[in-house]
């Protein structure tokens, strides 16, 4: 067994709570089965909904006949696109018009005129149980006229390709966030993004060695274990309640209201516990449908997707085509770098090309650089965020080429990276300036780690490294703290807890108030019970909601000081608060612990309660790296991971166990993406492998222990120095594995997934090519 998780660069303990490892607050409920997930919601009178989905990849809906389904005993309601006000007649979407998003959302959850991917919803049924609802689906008759399908991003980009949306035109932008200018050119390319600086031709002329390669990656899924689920209830008073597992309750509220054509304030979203999301559980697929079925039936309606529906009909991550070219001088200085990326958006625009482009050359100082990205619609499900959206794809290309470049120059791949590493003050690919960050410390930690220093021996074995970068934007969170009589506090937020953030946020409030983590009771509440709060995504909750909790706790502290001052009849400025004790500066014998003061609140002016939001500062940059050793069976192409060490600059790990968990889990997902996961398409273009059996996510037996190293270079944007740790760990594994396989076999894999058959073919081709050379 490898060593247990280790840490480096940890500064002397300056905090009492932050950096410790308390038991998570929701832990007992989750290990005993008491925690209530969206899946577990039930209420008297509940109906069960099912959705009829298109068997075709691209087709015109000629007619839908629901009459037989409506007559089946037990069926209480049937809906189609006509029931939804946002796009009642299924008119083509005019993408040039502002506010097109609701139309896209509405069309994506229930097709009106055209189905754009296999699994696109066309009708829904509510019945007294799920089996009857399923039988009813079989009684709905839909007539389709099958249309030509586009399934490959390069095919779809061709000027003569059929148009998936007749009104879609290409926008050109140089800004990571802006939509850019409408070129007016009708195309399946929704956006062309360009980041450019210096002069590529000059840079490549300066280079002694240039490596250029093409890469492709398959569409992959987040693979959360709890399927999509939602229960909707349309009350007789017109108020709508949705109980669901979502990362983004306020987003679900907004889009549900918009699709249903009702004021946002009439919709309440109750966040149930959520069984994984990884970016994928943000859009509303089921909520408006459940609500509409409820309106028609007069009863609450619950819809649970099957696993096949989750794969076919929710948002996976883009498949991609990439081309990367990097040049360097003999002594290992990068002189120019170019990256081309074309991402599958699926049926509607919106692939994460900006994320991919921003991440790309982030770890490298490059004077002459060009990144061009294309967001391209194809007849596949509309993509959604998946952990560091768009970034594993570009990292796979860039870090593979960097590795090959270092190999050709005869320079140690880590030395090469350290030599070219960016630092505070350098430019990101987007042109923004890097704030303080820990890339160099991370790469030094990798270089000095026992794993890197221990030689790897034996045939068919190779070691690969890669470094990944992500810039986290951040957003708004609200928090409320109520002080209890017994000296504990209740912390209320709207941030859905997807992996332990109740505790990591509560710990920050506890730190400010001089309490133990256990003295803070964190609760996540519905959208009527807390201020607007952004989504649980973008590596932002521990950072942003933590900031909101800190700000709120500071206000509680101020109010508690004022109360102590009132009791002691001194000005608040003459009350100190340290280590959980209030002291009068004038008369140091006047002391009250937080608990003692809390007990006196109601008698001395009433309870203390405070609310605040975080000032949104943007979470900032974060880096992660992998060292992975593999052994490849040259006869079968199968990869076994012998050893894996994952590194990350966490800024400050609030709860190190859960930061390690993010690093390990993200690494595992990256390994799955690299080695086996893919949307394997049938001849018709649907997903052939839409089960957990055939999608092949890693099991416990496919992974080694994942050793973690947390580096802590404080983030100046947060009082405790945190960075957003959730996403970046998924970025480096595909490239690290490709580099390890290249060093084990001599064959460079440029296609994800690097499944055994693909590796075997590459190894055979490499053998043949080597023979020819000799």
């Amino acid at each position, binding site marked *: 067994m490898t060593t247990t998780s280790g840490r480096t660069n940890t500064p002397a303990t300056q905090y009492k709570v932050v950096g410790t490892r308390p038991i998570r607050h929701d832990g007992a409920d989750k290990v005993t089965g008491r925690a209530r997930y969206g899946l577990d919601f039930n209420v008297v009178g509940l109906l069960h909904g099912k959705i009829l989905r298109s068997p075709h990849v691209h087709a015109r809906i000629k007619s839908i006949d629901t009459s037989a389904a409506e007559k089946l005993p037990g069926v209480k309601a049937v809906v189609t696109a006509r029931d939804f006000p946002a796009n009642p007649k299924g008119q083509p979407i005019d993408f040039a018009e502002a506010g097109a998003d609701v139309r896209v959302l509405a069309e994506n959850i229930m097709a009106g005129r055209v189905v754009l991917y296999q699994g696109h919803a066309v009708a829904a049924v509510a019945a007294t149980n799920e*089996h009857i609802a*399923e*039988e009813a689906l079989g009684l709905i008759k839909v007539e389709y006229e099958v249309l030509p399908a586009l399934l490959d991003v390069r095919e779809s980009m061709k000027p003569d390709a059929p148009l998936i949306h007749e009104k879609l035109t290409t926008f050109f932008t140089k800004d990571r966030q802006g939509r850019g200018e409408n070129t007016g050119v009708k195309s399946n390319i929704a956006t062309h993004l360009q980041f450019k600086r210096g002069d590529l031709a000059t840079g490549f002329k300066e280079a002694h060695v240039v490596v250029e390669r093409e890469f492709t990656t398959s569409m992959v899924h987040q693979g959360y274990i709890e399927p999509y689920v939602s229960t909707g209830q349309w009350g007789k008073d017109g108020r709508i309640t949705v109980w669901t597992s979502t990362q983004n309750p306020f987003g679900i509220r907004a889009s549900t209201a918009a699709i249903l054509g009702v004021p946002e304030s009439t919709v309440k979203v109750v966040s149930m516990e959520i069984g994984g999301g990884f970016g994928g559980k943000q859009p509303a697929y089921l909520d408006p449908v459940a609500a509409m079925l409820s309106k028609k039936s007069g009863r609450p309606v619950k819809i649970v997707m099957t696993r096949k529906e989750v794969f076919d009909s929710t948002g996976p991550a883009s498949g991609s085509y990439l081309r990367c070219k990097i040049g360097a001088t003999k002594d290992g200085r990068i002189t120019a770098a170019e990256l081309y990326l074309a991402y599958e958006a699926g049926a509607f625009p919106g692939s994460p090309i900006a994320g991919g482009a921003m991440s790309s050359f982030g770890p490298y100082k490059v004077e002459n650089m060009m990144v061009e990205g294309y967001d391209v619609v194809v007849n596949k499900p509309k993509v959604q965020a998946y952990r560091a959206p768009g970034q594993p794809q570009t990292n796979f290309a860039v870090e593979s080429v960097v590795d090959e470049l270092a190999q050709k120059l005869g320079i140690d791949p880590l030395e090469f990276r350290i030599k070219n590493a960016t630092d505070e003050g350098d430019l990101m690919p987007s042109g923004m300036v890097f704030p303080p960050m820990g890339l160099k410390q991370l790469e030094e930690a990798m270089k000095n780690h026992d794993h890197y220093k221990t030689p790897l021996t034996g045939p068919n074995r190779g070691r690969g490294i890669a470094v990944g970068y992500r810039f986290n934007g951040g957003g708004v969170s609200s928090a409320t703290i109520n002080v209890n009589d017994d000296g504990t506090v209740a912390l209320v937020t709207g941030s859905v807890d997807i992996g332990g953030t109740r505790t990591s946020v509560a710990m920050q409030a506890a730190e400010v108030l001089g309490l133990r983590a256990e003295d803070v009771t964190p609760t996540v509440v519905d959208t009527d019970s807390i201020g607007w709060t952004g989504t649980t995504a973008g590596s932002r909750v521990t950072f942003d909601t933590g900031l909101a909790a800190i700000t709120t706790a500071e206000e509680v502290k101020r109010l508690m000081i004022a109360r102590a001052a009132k009791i002691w009849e001194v000005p608040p400025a003459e009350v100190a608060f340290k280590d959980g004790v209030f002291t009068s500066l004038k008369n140091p014998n006047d002391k009250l612990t937080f608990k003692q003061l809390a007990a006196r609140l109601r008698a001395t002016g009433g309870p203390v309660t405070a609310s605040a939001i975080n000032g949104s500062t943007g979470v900032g940059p974060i880096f992660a790296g992998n060292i992975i050793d593999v052994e490849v069976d040259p*006869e*079968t192409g*199968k990869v076994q991971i012998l050893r894996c060490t994952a590194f990350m600059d966490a800024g400050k790990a609030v709860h190190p166990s859960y930061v390690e968990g993010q690093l390990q889990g993200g690494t595992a997902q990256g390994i799955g993406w690299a*080695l*086996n996961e893919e949307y*394997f398409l049938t001849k018709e273009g649907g997903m*052939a*492998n839409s089960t957990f*059996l*055939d999608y*092949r996510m*890693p*099991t416990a*037996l*496919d992974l080694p222990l994942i050793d973690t190293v947390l580096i802590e270079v404080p983030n100046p944007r947060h009082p405790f120095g945190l960075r957003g740790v959730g996403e970046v760990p998924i970025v480096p594994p595909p490239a690290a594995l490709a580099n390890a396989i290249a060093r084990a076999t001599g064959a460079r894999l440029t296609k994800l997934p690097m*499944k*055994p*058959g693909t590796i*075997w*073919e590459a190894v055979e081709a490499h053998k043949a090519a080597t023979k020819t050379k000799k």
Partner: protein
Amino acid sequence: MQAFEYVSAKSVGEAVGVLSQHGEGARLMAGGTDVLVQLRAGRRPQVKVLVDVKGIGELNELSYNDRQGLIIGAAVPCYRIYEDPTVIKRYPGIVDSASIIGSVQIQGRASLGGNICNATPSADGIPPLIALGAVCIIAGPNNSRRELPLEQLFAGPGRTTLQNGEMLISVRVPPPPANSGAQYLRFTPRNEMDIAVAGVGAAITLNAAKNTFVSGRVVLAAVAPIPLLVPAAGQALAGKPVNDETIGKAAEAAVAAAVPITDMRGTIEYRKHLVGVLTRRALQGAIQRAKGV
């Protein structure tokens, strides 16, 4: 899932009666790990009655004697097979397959009988049984019984040669000859919880000096419409010395016999290549076991 009636049969006669009465509308269930998935996915719409055979004593038999060999009742779950000391000692090739079908959870329910009757070309349970010369014991209407070499049971993907009203009672595996050994190997991208891209079951008998093959049987999974016995591979072994050349010839014969398709699990070329690799490895493993290494 479609509605169906559930019958927990207590005797072979009762089960055969339901099968005879309902024809295609009745389906037997042992562990249920295939049939329930198929019903839920709407792949067996004709089924109106599900007959649970776990309550039939004969189908739960797992016994061995030196005369007739090993009897594996059709409803015996995998775990009973691979935890049985006699099977572990005398039939490690069967342990190979019974212990890789699905997860440990699945192995708590799934039977080799169900694996056989489900008749998928990729079934892991079947090749080692055919390689070891297993015979099916089949019951039919009017208390009839017949025996059939297992390799003759398969008609195509998901189809057997069982007639209306017939059911598999058990398989009988002959006692292993002296100096014999068997192994089943499959190739899967994941280490467990996966379906074979290709699989090879090999059973061989050596002479007393353990340097010459007396006989051998090689059976392939996932590379033909049915589990495929390759007689040519056996012929390549019989009477030949135990060396890499002989093994290579048998592997070549196996590759030549394989007729795989290209699908999400692999291409034709890759699968044929794997048949060669796995045949060599399974034969080597079988030899080691025959030598008692």
